[in-house]
C-alpha cells in the first residue's frame, strides 16, 4: 500500500499518532501534499462519512477519525500552502442564538472539513448579525445552522431574515439541521437545504459549492 492508502486506513481507524507519523514520513519522501490530502486524509474521512450515513459506524468513530484527520492536516498545512492549494470553498457554521449545544455542529464541521471545505466556526449561541458579519468578512458561500431545541430552532429563520436584510441572501446557500428540525420547517423558513445527519450535510455542502463555482 502507498502512503495515501495507509493514511486513509489510519484515519478510518482513528489512529491520530499514526496518521501524523505517516504524513511526516510521506512529506519527507517528497510525496505530493495535495494527494496526501485528497487521496489520504479526505479519502479516509469520506469512507467514515458514508459508513456513518449507513449506521455502520457511530459518533465516536467519526470523532476519532476527525481528530486523526485534523492532526494530519496540521502537519500538511504548510506544505499545502507552499503548493498553493485552495479549499473548495468556505462555510460559516454555528449553533443559533439561545442554544449552547454543539456536538451536532461539531460533527458537521468535521465532515465538511473532510470534504476540503474551510469552516469558520462561530461557536454556539450566535446571533444572526454575527453570522452575517462572518459571511461578509470571509466571503463564505455556505451557512450551516444547528439548533437542538424546539425553543431555539426559530433562530434559524432569524439568520435567514438577517441575510435577506443585508442583501446577501442570494450569495449564500443556507443549510439547517438539528434534532427538532425537519424538511418541512426548512421549507417554511426559506432554507436551501435540510440534512438529517452530518455526513449528508457534508455531501450537500460539497455539491452546493461545486455548483456555485461552476464545476
Amino acid at each position, binding site marked *: 500500500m502507498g502512503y495515501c492508502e495507509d493514511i486513509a486506513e489510519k484515519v478510518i481507524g482513528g489512529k491520530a499518532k499514526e496518521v501524523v507519523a505517516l504524513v511526516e514520513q510521506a512529506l519527507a519522501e517528497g510525496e505530493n501534499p495535495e494527494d496526501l490530502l485528497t487521496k489520504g486524509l479526505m479519502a479516509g474521512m469520506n469512507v467514515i462519512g458514508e459508513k456513518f450515513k449507513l449506521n455502520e459506524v*457511530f459518533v*465516536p468513530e467519526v470523532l476519532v477519525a476527525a*481528530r486523526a484527520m485534523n492532526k494530519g492536516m496540521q502537519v500538511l498545512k504548510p506544505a499545502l500552502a507552499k503548493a498553493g492549494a485552495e479549499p473548495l470553498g468556505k462555510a460559516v457554521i454555528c449553533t443559533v442564538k439561545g442554544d*449552547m449545544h454543539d456536538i451536532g455542529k461539531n460533527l458537521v464541521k468535521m465532515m465538511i472539513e473532510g470534504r476540503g471545505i474551510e469552516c469558520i466556526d462561530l461557536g454556539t449561541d450566535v446571533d444572526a448579525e454575527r453570522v452575517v458579519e462572518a459571511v461578509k468578512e470571509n466571503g463564505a458561500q455556505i451557512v450551516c445552522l444547528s439548533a437542538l431545541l424546539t425553543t431555539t430552532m426559530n433562530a434559524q429563520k432569524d439568520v435567514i431574515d438577517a441575510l435577506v436584510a443585508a442583501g446577501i441572501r442570494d450569495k449564500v446557500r443556507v443549510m439547517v439541521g438539528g*434534532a427538532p428540525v425537519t424538511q418541512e420547517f426548512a421549507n417554511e423558513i426559506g432554507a436551501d437545504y435540510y440534512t438529517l445527519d452530518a455526513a449528508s450535510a457534508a455531501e450537500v455542502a460539497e455539491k452546493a459549492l461545486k455548483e456555485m463555482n461552476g464545476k
Partner: protein
Amino acid sequence: MTNRERTSNILHFKAADRMPAVHFGYWTELLEEWAGQGYIDRSILDGYYDGGPKDNELDRIIGWDYNWQHVFCGNNGLMPRFEHKVVKEFPDGSQAVQNGNGIIEKIHPGVISIPAEYDYLLKDREAFETLFKPKMALNIEKRVDFDFFGRFNTDIYEKTDVPLGIHLGSVMGSIRDMTSVMGMSYLMYDDDEELFGDIVDTFAEMQYEVAKAVLETGAKFDYAHYWEDICFNGGPLLSPTLFEELCAKHYKKRTELCHRHGIDIISLDCDGVVEKLLPVWVENGVNVMFPIEVGTWGDQFEKARKRFGNAVLGVGGMDKTALRKDKKAVDAELERMKRLASLGGFIPCPDHRLMPGSKFELVVYYCEEIKKIGW
C-alpha cells in the same frame, strides 16, 4: 384501584379500572410561566423535585395521577462530586464552568440550553486513578441511609398509592457525563480502550453494590429504573457492538438482583432513537421503554413491540409538543395513545418534561381525557 395496582396490572397485561395519567415533570421555565399566568402559586417552584411534595401538589391541581420518576436510591454517583466553579470567563459573557462530574461546560448565564462541552478532566489513567476512582469508592455507610431505608416501608411505601421505584443508576450515560462525548470517543477507540473498560466496570460495580444494599434493607419498590440518555435523533452515541461488550453484563447483574427482590418491571430512560440499543437492554432484562421520545422520527413503541413482543413494555410515547398547540393536536395524540394502549403493557406519558409554552388548560384537558381511554 390504587395507582400502584392499576399501573402494575397494565404492565402485567391484566385488567385495570382505567388508565393512569402519568407525567415526567416540567421545565422550571414552564412552572414560572404558569405562575406568571396565575394558574399556580409561585411557592410551588420552591424546592420542586420529581415525586416531591410540590410535584404531588401540582398533580392534584392539574389532574395527573403521578410522576413516573418517583424513585429512590442511595448515593450512586461520584462522591464527593467535583467542585462547581467558573474556570474561565469569555468576553461575550459566557463562562467555562466545571460541573460536579468533572466536565467543563460552556454556559451563558440566562441562556436556558443543554451546555456545550468545553473540556474534561478524565483524560488518562492518571486522572482516573487520582481524581475519579477515589470518588467511585464504595463507602457504603456514607452512600446509603440505612435508617431511612429501614423505615421506608412504613414511612413512605405504605402511605402512598403511587408506584415507587429504585434508581439503579446509569451504566453508560454517567460515564459520558464524566468523560464528555469527545473524551468517551477518544478513550474508547484510540487513547486507552482498556482504561475506558475499567472506568465503566468500576463505576458499575459501585452502583450495583449501592442498589443491593438498599434492596437488602427490605425496602419495597414497585419497579426499578435506569437513566442513560445515550441516543440522539441519529441513533446511539456509540456502537451497539461496543455497548454490548461493555455494558450487557452490568444490566444482567442488576436484573438478577431486582428479580431476587421481587421486582420485574425495569424501566430505562433514554431519549432519542433507541432502536439499535434496545436489543442489549431487552436481552438483559430491561423491559420498559421510557419516555419513548417521538421527536421528528415518530413512534418507536409499536416497532419495538413488533420486534420483541410482550418482552417490551412502555411508559411514554405522547408527543408533548401537542400540549403547546391546540385541542385538535391533543385529541390526535389521545387517539394515538388509545391505539398504543390497546396493544397492552403500555402507559401513555408525555415523552419528556413539559416544556415552556405548554398550555395549562390543554394539560388539564389531557389528564381528564387520558383517564377515559380505559383498559
